[in-house]
């Protein structure tokens, strides 16, 4: 397996979906190629970074809903009730 193929298989490997026969080759390459090892680490870190930056614990979230949005929704609902 070459670095190019390893990059293609990366996502399946990370999610545990890479078939057994590819996984052995993947891991063999990984054990010999520092550059691919580093790329894999950064790929996983990137996914994690996105989750942390935009996730539940993120600053822009979620506790405070703008008061004017709450008021706007409730007012609009009264104008156009369900029934």
């Amino acid at each position, binding site marked *: 397996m070459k670095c190019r193929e390893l990059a293609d298989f990366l996502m399946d490997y990370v999610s545990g979906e890479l078939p057994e026969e590819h996984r052995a080759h993947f891991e063999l390459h990984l054990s010999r190629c520092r550059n691919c090892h580093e790329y894999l680490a950064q790929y996983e870190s990137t996914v994690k970074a996105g989750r942390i930056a935009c996730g539940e614990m993120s600053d822009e979230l979620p506790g405070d809903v703008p008061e004017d949005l709450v008021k706007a929704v409730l007012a609009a*609902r009264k104008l156009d009730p369900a029934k």
Partner: protein
Amino acid sequence: MGSATPVDDEAALIAQLRAGDESAYEQVVRTYGGRLLAVTRRIVGSEEDARDIVQDAFLNAFKSVGRFEGNSKLSTWLHRIAVNAALMKLRTRKRKPEQSIETMLPSFLEDGHHEERFKSWDEPVDKALERAETRQLVRAKIDELPDGYRTVLVLRDIEGLDTEETAKMLGLSVNATKIRLHRARQALRTMLAPHFAASGGGKATP
């Protein structure tokens, strides 16, 4: 503050909504509004549009709460309504042609090796992301991804939808969705790398 407390008894809340209880509507907006606003903003890239979408999503949800079957959680149902509306907005908006992502994907030498030598990152991401400015940077870089890639990344990696559901929402095949997600992550890595590795990347010596 503390308005986003989890709902203990969702069934009771839904019953109140169906009965037209005003305080239940308000509780739902306060509990779920922030998160809906964040994901919608991330998809459409505009605060004003996000607010309109979230407002409409709540109104639609309130109207159709009689049809809510309770197979999913209320929050999941609300997210679906808002995300679908956000994707619709993105489709109807006049956009400039999608920018190419190719230059942000890894390139390879003829022998199949990476062209770039990856410089290791200075610290673990969870540590780096303890800083608000780094979290802000990551969000800004996600926002820079072309629409078709950003939406897949948001739905899969941030909203946590599975590939099948993401594909369905975007009208893509499962395979196309997987390819897009992989490319979006690779592109995001390329954008983050100069900020996470002090001395940046470099060309591999032949």
